[in-house]
């Protein structure tokens, strides 16, 4: 404490704290700045798509009926994957996706909360009954990837996983109906 009045020294201490707080503010701005920069320039968001769907009648008809699941290439060339996360398996069990091309993955759950990630990629979402989970991404690597259910959904949770085949362009060949299924390995 310098010989000045304790009052002045206490104010000096508070000034050092404010200086530190300013430094902390710079660091927080750096972290938030990176988030803002990639959001504005590369559309990097957490996957969110507030699209409601009735989990109880999911299997009857519509987008998530059993026959409509899997990878489909639209007339405009957009690749859309539709899959179901249900107690204790994903349907389809193997999903084929193209590498280095924009892909939209859509999931729904007819029963409880599930969640999924694809190892080595940024595909990650919860699958909440009542909503369609949608992830827009691009697979930057090829090969067989693992897609486990990463949210507790009952006693069979540990056995609930599917395989994702990220195929290079020459192997990703849609059939006449635009559907692509996994290559038998």
């Amino acid at each position, binding site marked *: 404490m310098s010989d000045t009045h304790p009052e002045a020294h206490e104010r000096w*201490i508070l000034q050092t704290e404010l200086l530190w*707080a300013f430094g902390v503010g710079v660091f927080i701005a750096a972290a938030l700045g990176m988030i803002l920069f990639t959001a504005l320039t590369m559309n990097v968001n957490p996957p969110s798509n507030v699209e*409601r769907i009735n989990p109880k009648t999911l299997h009857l008809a519509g987008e998530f009926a059993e026959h409509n699941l899997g990878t489909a290439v639209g007339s405009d060339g957009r690749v859309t994957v539709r899959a179901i996360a249900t107690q204790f398996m994903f349907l389809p069990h193997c999903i084929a996706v193209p590498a280095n091309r924009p892909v939209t993955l859509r999931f729904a759950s007819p029963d409880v*909360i599930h969640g999924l990630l694809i190892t080595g990629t940024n595909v990650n*979402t*919860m699958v909440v009954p009542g*909503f369609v989970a949608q992830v827009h991404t691009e697979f930057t690597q090829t090969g067989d990837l693992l897609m486990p259910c990463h*949210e507790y959904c009952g006693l069979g*949770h540990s056995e609930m996983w599917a395989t994702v085949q990220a195929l290079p362009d020459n192997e990703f060949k849609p059939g006449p109906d635009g559907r692509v299924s996994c290559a038998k390995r």
Partner: protein
Amino acid sequence: MRNVERLCLAHFWVAFAAFLVAAVLGTWQMWVRSPLGANVGTPGHYFMSVTAHGVSMAYVLTTFFIMGFGYFVAVTALDRPLPGKPLAWAAYWLGLLGVVLAVIPIATGHASVLFTFYPPLTGSPWFYIGLVLVVAASWVWCVLMMVAMTQWKRENPGKPVPLAMFATVANAVMWLWTTVGVAAELLFQVIPAALGLVQTIDVGLARTLFSWTLHAIVYFWLIPAYIAFYTLVPRAAGGRLYSDTMGRLTFILFLIYSLPVGMHHLLMDPEHGNATKFIQVLLTAFVSVPTLLTIFTITASFEIAGRLRGGKGVLGWIGALPWERPMVLAAGLAFVMLGFGGFGGIVNMGYGMNAMVHNTAWVTAHFHLIFGGSVVIMYFAIAYEIWPRLTGREHISLMPLRLQLWLWFIGMIVMTFPWHWLGLQGQWRRVANFNYADPIIAGWGPWVVVSLGGGVILLISALLFVWNLAALHRGPAVALARPLYALAVHPPQRVPAALNGFGFWNVLVLVLMVLAYGFPIAQFVIEPSPSAIVHRVQ
């Protein structure tokens, strides 16, 4: 001590008994999911254990420790008897009844829904009612803390409330705000479903209400560790607290910023849009401010102590600190773990980057390091520091205490560092048995075994901790209790009312909660999401 010793000891022993059981279960779980424990136990056993581990560590250890420590602070910091002591005992027995009510269905496999309840999975109603009783008991504690402070302020007009008590009441006020979310979810959604009164549940609303509690509750657990940082550690290190005002500001910032940020647990959920998620990420960035202020203020307090003991040069004071004292050692180790855990946290908070780590072992590593590491090691240090005052007996030697703290630190680092690596590889959470034949998972096996090693070290440390405390009941009678609470470089003479009470801050919290959680909850009230059929795990 105005005979609250038995009340505090009763709370602490319930807390540490639950802690010991949960530590054993945690280690068993890590063995079962490792390559060494393949085909041991069934998923039923595993998820029963995960539920018990979560409930014991997150609800029983924390709530009872915080209540016990709060009663201790209210009596020693204010130096007056505890108001409504019979009420405190009633709350204790209510909480204990709640714990028993919750543990029975867990042990019989009727509540394997984990401690974060995944509706529409619904357990036995007694499980939820038990937890509500524990929360109700903590509400009584909050009222007693506020009454104690108000009475003290009436008896000492104009004088600043001691920092330890100010922080404890800040924690109580924040906890009352915090429990609104889970109370609404349990009372209006989950318990009616568990009782069979309703057949469906609005899952989107349930997750949003639970997220309201899910983050602020970790600050309810964390603030006692920060009370130790600000009011016990500077004295133990033989120095002064660098700034008392900054201490008050830190606990006020915790009260304000820990509440409106819960939705960063739902970044990967489909039921909220990007806008509300970005707002909550930005607010989450500001919840790191009080922690970063604390790091500076307490390191400065350490520097004062180190220099007073002859530390020279820019960092010479570090070596001069009395590391042989458990409170000082624990604070140092806690800061290291807070650093690594904090790093894990800002990565989780990274808006889009959360997709890289959500629900992977990275998240498990984050909260084991911050809660299991820096907060719980400070719980140990607080227990070691105040046990002599509660039992009237002194530790024979500090060596076993230091050994226990080191083991906890080493175990935590060995357990959680592999988890960070495995999390980035995609290892997902809550798996009873891995398919180690899969080429991707096979690579994880050795790292899981390394983290199992860390788990075993933690178990040894947990056993040693309870042994140290139990042994102290038979230690030699203590001669004279050293003064406990730290003194600031400038003890506060006058403090603005804003830094001496919470009236104004509650208004600010209300405004923040309306801005941050208003729309997300309103969207379910305006148009409920399609409900899901209840799946009973009973």
